[in-house]
């Protein structure tokens, strides 16, 4: 199909490179350099979507980030789907597949449109708050249909084939926007030697200079752009980022830039490339040269395709060589809009008329238009667009701007394009992200950036400076200032000459009056994406929504993907008028990141999947893998959970492993336990203060179990600490608690007791630990060590240094299973070799590797707790029946002692840890099951505790559990009940929590 709206000449597109794409199933052609929107307009595509609420046909309105309608679905395969792509910001690439997001059966003939026309009358803002309430149980059904109708594009349902990354950047000056102000600023800052980043959201630098009819030094403005970009590109201190949107301005001059590396090449990134990148920039200074968005006028039926922004049409004509129509009508209140008239005439097309709300405009561009024969109707405006799927005419009436009344019956002029311009809204978004309120300037009828916490300058249109010559100068000055503030010397420079021209001010006009009251006139759209009308805003204020945030929330003004870039100022002007207050009194809503939407994947970067969080493995990982271990996540560690043999499930494997330890010997990889090396003359005193029990008398060569509490008296970690030398201890912590405990020790040392001479070093990763446990462990270990293992020479709760497997080792004789046990610690580098030697030597001793599950069963049989499983942050040592571990007479009031002696800590009916023995020895209580004394009571039941650990014991031959029960230690022998989800109840006897070898003989042989 031919490009019906492509001009014969002009534009920056490469006519030698045709690009084929499809839209709604139809194939079209554009040129390299087109945006998707330009290519659609070139092909005469009027309707790009249907509106959200009323299903009205909508066309392209703008040429940039402010576009509300051309929000399309892109993607030829399921995995490559991209929802809600703004066609005005998407470069055309060969094979691009785009579709509209709403409309059935098609956007051109949409059945919902009929519904919208009829039902639309019943859908004022907030209508959903007023209905769908009855019957109560139908809301989920109503909601299903509402949800289906809402939403724009759709998410892919397959996994993203692309990857994303981010980059940290530091610079002296970050310049945001590469239009005239931004280029001048970047030039000034770069020449001073500053490290400069220049970021712009478009495909190429230049901004408005790429399409302006104004000249620089008498040349086409883009020639100056080429020169400046070439100069900047040649400087080592400058980073140029095209296709890069600065989307958030955060505290302490931290900004994020969303760079689209490959979106202009295709829907999926080429092999080896990240699709998008986030730059996380810390800038000493920022120059915001973000420009301004043209504001449309609000008039009746202003949403019919063929209603566009004046500037946008200039851009399509001059930059893309596309004329989105034949006969143009302009409605405006300012001089700048006349540029589109001149551009349109230059393209050889017809300007039907200009309606200027001002009574006697005499600016240079106005006069030029007049001189070229353009009919200018002053004191007038387009009050209503005609046409349904495309503009067919414009009704122009004389208006009284002050009284906001139509003062003449007016005339209807045939045309196919109405462009409007109500002035310019500076893009104050980034400047306001830290909460700085924009300030209203009546002279330019716009909000400009207010004071903020940002170390930035604003330059050009965002600053309320609109004349090209002034914009360049403002930009250069801002660049110099930013560089100086960043510590560099100022430079001087010459800027190109601009055309001198007489300009006249605009007149305030937002909503154009209609002969009917707003509520009865045809719809006058304020926010096109959300179908918010002037009547809707008036209704909201009438119903009592008087704050700007209330108006926004009640009408959905500015809630779209464009975040109200076109509509917000008009909307609040209308609200202010309805309430009889001024625009600055009304104020703006909060500006929040993002300026334009950012891909989730880009923000997540590489930190997904395998890199979501590091996996920590022990030195023996390869052996575990080779031997079929199943793994459990414990903190960041992957720990062997159990080692199933062929045909074994968890229970079978654990039963086998348990019996092996009880009857022969097992080996556990315990390397993940936290290990903290503590040295210094006050190390012992420090231990006294952070552990609940006493450490004064622990001799060199001995080890002791310790409990750690927080200041509230609740248990927070535990472990065995050994005395290596008088001033030297090795503390072990739980696997998950290692980092927490380390920080805990440091905070007390650094903030409370800096006078204590003690030093902490985490050595968790330096030492690997293998636990040999079981009656055969001594015999086995003897084969691989030179340490004297005689029970008197090396008694329980002591440690020795020596060789194990031929390498230096520390061996601790401590036990978490109740069996004779040795924990062999060697340097992690040697650990795999030592492990393999032990495994080899263990063959004849019945050595069995076991995992965490078996460890849990064995320790529970002994009543040993696991912090985090048997405790939950509300449990004191006494609650655990571990009063033996509480140093009640220690001189220093150690951490937790005061806390556990508060009123609530001394209650007799606190939940206490006890053993639970199911009456039916084959029933295993579910871990977590709640306990009651009376299972027959009505719900809500009085719960008295819960099961914390529960297993089937192969060694005991029956099921057993530990749990907390109110006043449980005094209830030994009584019964508790666990009412289960399936309605059954498990009955259990409260018993001692030590089930196996209660006298502790086996570990002490």
């Amino acid at each position: 199909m031919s490009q019906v709206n492509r001009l014969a000449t002009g534009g920056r597109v490469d006519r030698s490179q045709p690009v084929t794409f499809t839209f709604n199933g139809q194939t079209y052609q554009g040129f390299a350099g087109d945006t998707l929107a330009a290519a659609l307009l070139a092909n005469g595509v009027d309707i790009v979507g249907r509106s959200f609420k009323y299903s009205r046909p909508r066309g392209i309105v703008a040429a940039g980030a402010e576009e509300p309608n051309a929000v399309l679905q892109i993607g030829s395969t399921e995995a490559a789907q991209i929802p809600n792509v703004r066609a005005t910001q998407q470069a055309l690439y060969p094979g691009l597949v785009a579709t509209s997001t709403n409309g059935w059966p098609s956007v051109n003939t949409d059945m919902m449109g009929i519904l919208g026309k009829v039902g639309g009358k019943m859908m004022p803002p907030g209508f959903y708050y007023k209905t769908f309430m009855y019957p109560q149980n139908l809301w989920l059904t109503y909601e299903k249909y509402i949800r289906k109708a809402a939403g724009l594009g759709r998410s892919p349902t397959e996994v993203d084939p692309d990857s994303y990354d981010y980059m940290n950047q530091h610079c002296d000056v970050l310049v945001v926007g590469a239009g005239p102000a931004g280029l001048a600023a970047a030039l000034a800052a770069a020449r001073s030697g500053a490290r400069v980043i220049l970021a712009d959201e478009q495909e190429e630098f230049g901004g408005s200079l790429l399409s302006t009819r104004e000249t620089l030094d008498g040349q086409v403005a883009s020639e100056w752009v080429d020169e400046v970009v070439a100069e900047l590109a040649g400087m080592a201190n400058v980073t140029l980022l095209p296709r890069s949107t600065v989307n958030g301005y955060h505290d302490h001059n931290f900004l994020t830039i969303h760079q689209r590396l490959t979106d202009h090449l295709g829907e999926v990134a080429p092999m080896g490339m990240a699709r998008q990148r986030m730059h996380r920039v810390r800038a000493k200074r920022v120059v915001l040269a973000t420009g301004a968005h043209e504001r449309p006028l609000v008039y009746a039926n202003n949403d019919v395709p063929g209603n566009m922004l004046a500037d946008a049409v200039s851009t399509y004509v001059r930059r893309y060589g596309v004329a989105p129509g034949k006969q143009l009508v302009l409605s405006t209140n300012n001089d700048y809009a006349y540029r589109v008239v001149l551009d349109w005439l230059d393209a050889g097309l017809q300007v039907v008329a200009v309606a200027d709300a001002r009574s006697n405009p005499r600016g240079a561009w106005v006069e030029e238009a007049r001189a070229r024969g353009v009919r200018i109707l002053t004191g007038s405006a387009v009050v209503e667009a005609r046409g349904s799927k495309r503009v067919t005419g414009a009704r122009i009436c004389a208006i009284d701007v002050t009284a906001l009344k139509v003062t003449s019956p007016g005339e209807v002029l045939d045309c196919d394009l109405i462009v409007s311009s109500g002035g310019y809204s500076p893009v104050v978004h980034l400047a306001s992200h830290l909460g700085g309120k924009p300030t209203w300037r009546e002279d330019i009828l716009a909000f400009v950036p207010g004071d903020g916490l940002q170390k930035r300058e604003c330059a050009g249109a965002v600053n309320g400076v609109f004349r090209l010559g002034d914009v360049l100068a403002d930009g250069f000055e801002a660049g110099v200032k930013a560089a100086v503030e960043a510590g560099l010397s100022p430079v001087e420079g010459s800027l190109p000459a601009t055309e001198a021209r007489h300009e006249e001010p605009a007149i305030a006009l937002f909503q154009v009056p209609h002969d009917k009251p707003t509520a009865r006139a045809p719809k006058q759209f304020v926010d096109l994406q959300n179908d918010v009308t002037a009547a809707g805003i008036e209704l909201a204020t009438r119903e009592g929504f008087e704050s700007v945030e209330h108006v926004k929330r009640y009408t959905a003004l500015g809630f779209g993907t464009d975040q109200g870039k076109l509509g917000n100022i008009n909307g609040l002007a209308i609200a202010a008028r309805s309430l009889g207050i001024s625009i600055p009194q009304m104020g703006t809503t909060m500006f929040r990141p993002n300026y334009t939407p950012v891909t989730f994947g880009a923000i997540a970067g590489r930190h997904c999947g395998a890199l979501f969080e590091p996996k920590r493995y022990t030195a023996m990982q390869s052996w575990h893998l080779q031997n079929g271990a199943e793994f459990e996540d414990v903190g960041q560690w992957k720990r062997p959970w159990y080692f199933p043999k062929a045909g074994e499930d968890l229970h079978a494997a654990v039963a086998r492993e348990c019996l092996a330890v009880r009857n022969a010997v097992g080996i556990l990889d315990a390397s993940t336990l936290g290990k903290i090396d503590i040295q210094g003359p006050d190390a012992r005193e420090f231990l006294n203060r952070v552990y609940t029990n006493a450490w004064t008398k622990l001799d060199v060569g001995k080890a002791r179990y310790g409990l750690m509490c927080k200041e509230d008296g609740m248990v927070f970690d535990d472990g065995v600490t050994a005395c290596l030398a008088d001033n030297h201890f090795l503390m072990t912590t739980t696997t998950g608690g290692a980092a927490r405990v380390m920080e805990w020790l440091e905070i007390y040392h650094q903030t409370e007791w800096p006078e204590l001479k003690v030093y902490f070093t985490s050595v968790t990763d330096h030492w690997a630990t293998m636990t040999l446990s079981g009656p055969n462990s001594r015999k086995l270990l003897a084969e691989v060590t030179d340490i004297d293992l005689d029970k008197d020479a090396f008694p329980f709760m002591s440690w020795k240094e020596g060789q194990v497997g031929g390498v230096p080792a520390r061996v601790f004789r401590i036990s978490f299973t109740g069996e004779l046990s040795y924990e062999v610690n060697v340097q992690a580098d040697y650990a795999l070799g030592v492990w393999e030697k032990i495994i080899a030597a263990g063959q004849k001793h019945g050595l069995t590797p076991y995992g965490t599950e078996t460890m849990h069963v064995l320790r529970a049989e002994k009543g040993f707790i696991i912090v985090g499983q048997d405790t939950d942050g509300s449990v004191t040592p006494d609650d655990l029946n571990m009063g033996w571990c509480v140093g009640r007479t220690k001189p220093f009031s150690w951490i937790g002692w005061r806390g556990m002696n508060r009123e609530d800590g001394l209650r007799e009916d606190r939940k206490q840890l006890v053993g639970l023995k199911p009456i039916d020895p084959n029933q295993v209580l579910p871990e977590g099951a709640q306990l009651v004394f009376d299972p027959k009571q009505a719900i809500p039941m009085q719960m008295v505790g819960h099961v914390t650990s529960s297993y089937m014991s192969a060694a005991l031959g029956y099921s057993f559990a530990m749990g907390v029960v109110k006043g449980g230690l005094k209830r030994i022998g009584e019964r508790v009940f666990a009412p289960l989800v399936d309605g059954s109840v498990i009955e259990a006897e409260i018993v001692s929590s030590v089930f196996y070898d209660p006298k502790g003989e086996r570990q002490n042989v």
Partner: protein
Amino acid sequence: MLHIFCPHCGELRSEEEFHAKGQAHIPRPLDPAACSDAEWGDYLFFRDNPRGIHHELWVHAAGCRQYFNATRHTVTYEILETYKIGEKPRFTAAGGAEPQAVDQGVTA
């Protein structure tokens, strides 16, 4: 993303390297046993939580692992100063000089 001057490292570093640890200058009572339950509860849980100048404890967790204090404004998030444990803040809510950027570099 705050930019925090670590007084131990002598460098401005990004917030990701640090952890906030709550209000500063809350010393552990020297004689906990002498505290009533109420006093102990105050020490454990009750904080000033001001809207404005806040002295707070931070740790350079992914750096030197040292603790230090910061004087930060809880509305603007400006950091007026950071200082080592045991030192006194130069800026307090009670007044003194109008807060000025300190010589530690760009923090706001």
